[in-house]
């Protein structure tokens, strides 16, 4: 890395001091800032999404999550069951026919050459 020459550093320090504004400038700009539209509009409130939840809100959220999980588990556990009314209905003849009723059924087992 290139280094600055010593007299170059002196020039930088002198220029830095020269460019440092005085107290009057600082105050003048601050007064202008107070009268600027950005200041008069007021600082915006923090975004709602970043506001922390209150204790009650946390409990409500937890309860809602627990209820959702329990509901989902219950539904998953009972998903294979048929309703009571469906059990009493007569089974259609075709669906209830045994495997052996098929004309090909006998051949499959005894099919020698």
């Amino acid at each position, binding site marked *: *890395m*290139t*280094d*600055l*020459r010593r*007299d*170059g550093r*002196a*020039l*930088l320090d*002198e*220029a*830095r001091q*020269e*460019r*440092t*504004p005085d107290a009057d*400038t*600082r105050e*003048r*700009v*601050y007064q*202008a*800032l107070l009268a*600027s*539209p*950005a*200041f008069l*509009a007021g*600082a*915006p*409130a*923090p*975004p709602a999404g970043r506001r922390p939840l209150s204790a009650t809100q946390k409990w409500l959220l937890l309860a809602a999550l627990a209820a959702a999980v329990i509901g989902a588990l219950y539904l998953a556990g009972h998903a294979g069951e048929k309703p009571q009314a469906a059990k009493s209905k007569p089974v259609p003849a075709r669906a209830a026919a045994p495997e052996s009723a098929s004309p090909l059924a006998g051949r499959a087992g005894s099919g020698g050459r």
Partner: protein
Amino acid sequence: MAETPPTFRALYEGHFDFVWRFAAHRGVPQAALDEVVLEVFGYVYQQQASLEGRLALRTWIAGVTRSIVRSYLRSHGFQSPPPLAIEALYAAEDLGAPELLEKKSAGELLDLILDKMSAAQREAFVLCDIEGLPAVETAQALGVTETTLSARLHQARQVFNAVSARLRAERFWITRGSATET
């Protein structure tokens, strides 16, 4: 642990000089400094709700200032010069007549040098070598890696040494130096 956000007035007092000098050394004309600095702090004021827990406040303000200054310079037609070879800088004849150079202040002389740098080199040089920001902070403020910053700083210092050598060769600087020592 997050720091308590400073009040806006304290924030303004603590960073005003830095913002002002950064804008001035970056090339904003004296007459427009009020406007640019006002815009920077207007933005900072609008964003102060999100400053909570922001540890590197100066880095963030440097980034905001850089962005607003760039926008100002672009919209007002200020352009950085095309990069010159360092040898060309040593031989440059466009620094002005010695009798005029002798009357320039340190800030004006520094502007002569900074005007020879590209925008990226100038930003790196002003933040690191004039304002004394650490390399990590400067790289974050400029949105570059430390390697990139290091390369830009190296080039900027070469430009600085070359042009300041030219100024010294005009002997007015030696006169200035002896005048300030006595």
